[in-house]
């Protein structure tokens, strides 16, 4: 249940650590796994090694407005066969306007619902799916 002002973890290497939901794209009340949202980057990754991060090319900065795909939700997601999945946190992956991921790697598990919503690029980047 991602809605306006929800804070999510960003689990790719785009440079964002924590983002805030600014809008759910589509006629939806709230976003679930596989839904697209607009986010504001609130915290950058690698605050300690800021110079390093800048050198290695943190692709997004604090205050940037980006699109993202929700990959994990705290809210239970029921599948067609009656099984449910629930994660401990809300997480997303940043994408550009055309739907390609900004980062090149994802660290962390992502939900299987991405397959149904045609996010195969993100699924293939993820180390594990549940």
């Amino acid at each position, binding site marked *: 249940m991602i809605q306006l002002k929800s804070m999510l973890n960003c689990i790719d290497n785009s440079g964002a650590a924590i983002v805030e939901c600014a809008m759910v794209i589509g006629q939806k009340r709230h976003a679930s796994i596989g839904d697209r949202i607009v986010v504001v980057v609130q915290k950058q990754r690698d605050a300690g090694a800021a110079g390093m991060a800048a050198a290695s090319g943190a692709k997004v900065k604090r205050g940037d407005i980006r699109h993202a795909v929700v990959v*994990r939700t705290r809210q*239970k997601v029921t599948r067609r*066969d*009656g*099984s*449910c*999945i*629930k*994660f*401990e*946190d809300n*997480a997303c992956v940043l994408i550009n306007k055309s739907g390609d991921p900004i980062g090149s790697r994802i*660290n*962390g*598990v992502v939900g*299987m619902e991405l397959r149904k919503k045609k996010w195969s690029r993100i699924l293939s980047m993820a*180390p*594990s*799916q*549940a």
Partner: protein
Amino acid sequence: MNVAPLARRPLVCLKSAVRQARQQKIFSRSMATEVQATSKPPSRSPDRNFYRVVDKKTKTTRSAFAIYPPTSAGLPLIPPTTTNPVAALHDFQIKKLDPTGARTALFARTREAAKVGDILLVTHRRGGEPFAGVCLSIRRAGIDTAVLLRNHIGKVGVEMWFKIYNRNVAGIEIVKRRLKRARRARLTYMRKPKHDMGSVAEYVSAWRKSRRVFQTKGAKGKTGATTAGGKGGKGGKKK
């Protein structure tokens, strides 16, 4: 309103007279239908309104309206059911989805069955790797019986509900039993960081290794074979 002097009051009011007549007519009609319904008086006094004949064989009155006695014709009386129909349906469905009874036995209230606190491994038929986790609760609800498993995948807690009679669930196996019986039916406290078990991957890998030891040389690399056997596997029971 009613204080008009007697002299000026009309002796007969056509309207009221007509109204009274109409009411009487309605009354007589309704009386007639009541007689019809009960069919008490034999058709001594012929009723012009309705067609009725006394059947020669059965000696019952046949009228324009079908009158069914409660038991003899029409619907047979359904005897009151002694069994719970919902439970009967669940039994029927369980028999259909679990002909061997292995799944039922795995979560029955017996000593050797799986209990909360055990580490279970669920193999899914529709792709994906098998999901292992601590069983936090068993929701017993007939055909809808489900188990809640919790695990950590890459530092993130993941919880999944599985319906045990689901055909997509190829097998459920007990990886490790809890040392002592849990004193709660639902171990929701295991979500708290203090009691959280963390990842169960090491238990699963140890269990896999031990199974490989038990296996004979002929069945090499067949770890998944029993899992995908289709019957709620009970590999962990040998412990």
